């Protein structure tokens, strides 16, 4: 399948392909370990919902919005947290999703269906693409996966306003992962036996099995980051038209698209994900048959000439 004659040593190719996946696993586990250690050592570190030292803390931007709306009050730490999250989205896009968030890893542990499998199944079922239900009524500039994610974000904020407490935080899979970890720590440390230690993981499993395309199409945190990752210009995957099997040789290759958990089709733009939804996971480059991709950082060098 290499008409260009691009050959790779099989072993080198395999280890290179897995390198980024292993790195991502490492960073996610490291993040979890740091928070668990922070709890055990009484450092006051926190969780991804809010973490910091002393009175200085960063927060999940959705949680920050929810708590301010629920309390009908503007607060300094949440406000700064939102600004920091926006800046992170501008500089790193949705890299949080692949490199920090424990949900993708948790999904791998609880189900054998990955998000990209769910997208692939959709493609098979309805021809090339799902029938567009609101095709005529789409909002300008918004389309595809982020529409539903922003809808969930909207309902999240609306229910918080209506009921006076952060509703979504009760069932957020990120929060539930930490809640499970903390409950297990307290079970071991204090013999604190509560039903929560069973309920939380059950809820996570239910959510990630039923809502298989959570990350790309439903997660309000991802949706919020996606609003500002439009401004992100660094580490964007780019296709070299001369090497791509599709553009240069007319082959029907879909490897990068099939590998993408956000359903981004870089070549034909037929996926339900868009470029700013990219979580910088590097899977597209890792799976390219022609290895025509620039590693994400190199795309920058190329543009700079």
């Amino acid at each position, binding site marked *: 399948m290499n008409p260009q004659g691009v050959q790779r040593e099989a072993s080198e190719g395999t280890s290179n392909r897995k390198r980024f996946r292993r790195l991502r696993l490492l960073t996610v586990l490291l993040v979890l370990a740091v928070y668990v250690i922070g709890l055990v050592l009484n450092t006051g570190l926190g969780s991804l919902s809010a973490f910091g030292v002393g009175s200085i803390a960063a927060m999940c931007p959705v949680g920050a919005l929810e*708590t301010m709306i629920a309390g009908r009050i503007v607060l300094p730490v949440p406000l700064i947290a939102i600004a920091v999250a926006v800046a992170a989205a501008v500089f790193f896009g949705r890299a949080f999703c692949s490199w920090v968030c424990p949900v993708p890893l948790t999904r791998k542990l609880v189900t054998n269906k990955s998000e990209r499998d769910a997208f692939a199944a959709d493609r098979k079922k309805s021809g090339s693409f799902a029938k567009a239900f609101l095709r005529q009524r789409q909002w300008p500039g918004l389309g595809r996966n982020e529409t539903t994610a922003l809808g969930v974000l909207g309902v999240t904020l609306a*229910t918080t306003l209506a009921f006076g407490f952060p509703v979504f935080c009760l069932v957020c899979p990120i929060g539930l992962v930490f809640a499970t970890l903390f409950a297990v720590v307290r079970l071991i440390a204090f013999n604190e036996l509560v039903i929560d230690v069973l309920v939380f993981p059950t809820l996570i499993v239910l959510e990630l099995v039923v809502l298989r395309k959570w990350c790309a*199409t439903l997660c309000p945190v991802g949706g919020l980051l996606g609003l500002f990752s439009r401004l992100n210009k660094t580490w964007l995957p780019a296709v070299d038209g001369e090497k791509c099997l599709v553009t240069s040789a007319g082959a029907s290759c879909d490897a990068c698209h099939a590998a993408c958990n956000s359903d981004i089709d870089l070549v034909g733009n037929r996926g339900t994900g868009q470029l700013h939804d990219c979580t910088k996971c590097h899977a597209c480059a890792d799976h390219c048959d022609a290895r025509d991709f620039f590693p994400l950082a190199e795309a920058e060098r190329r543009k700079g000439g």
Partner: protein
Amino acid sequence: MAAEGSGAGADACRDDAGAPGARRGETGGPLAISRRGLFAAAGVSASLLVLGGTAALAGHEQQVRPPGGQDVRGLLAGCNHCGRCVSVCHTRAIGFASLTEGLIGVRTPVMRFSLGSCDFCGDCATVCPTGALRPFDVAAAQAGDVSAACLGKAVLDERICLAWTFSSCNLCSEKCPYGAIELSETGQPVVLEAACNGCGVCENVCPVLSLRSYIGGSDRAIRVLPSTEEG
């Protein structure tokens, strides 16, 4: 839950999967959301509405909260379950409320005096990023000023208190840092409510559960119960 949707039916613009180039009927602009995606989002939204309504309407038992958290509505509104207060408490007295203690308050901070007592160091309020635990006057609280911080009031259960049934214990009175438990003429402890700030030392040291383990249950003879007024 979210309906995965019946098959979306034959797409009139069907073309070969994987074929490059233009699709019939597509101008290259972004697609609108799919029916399946809409159902999933609607399902999640409906669930949030039901969850919020249920939690808000269902009553919840008053719990003993960390200092600065006596405004329960403010605490429930502001708490995003980050766990910083639980983590920072050096006496390990703060824990997470369980699901069984009320849906709306699950994972919010509550005092667990069986594990430790409160010394009003103020760290929990300092680390709270949303003000769910409000800062309070640490020095005044540690000096015993009940108006600076009061987690609740100690309440004695005379039916199981060792002193009240066998005149054989005065640990709570002895250990109370604020002199809020005095002994009657016959040597039984009595709580002076005005002086009690709910620090939980009495509950923490009460030996009833070990010396009367045959009676079962998890309530000690003296417990801090939440006050209903805002602190």
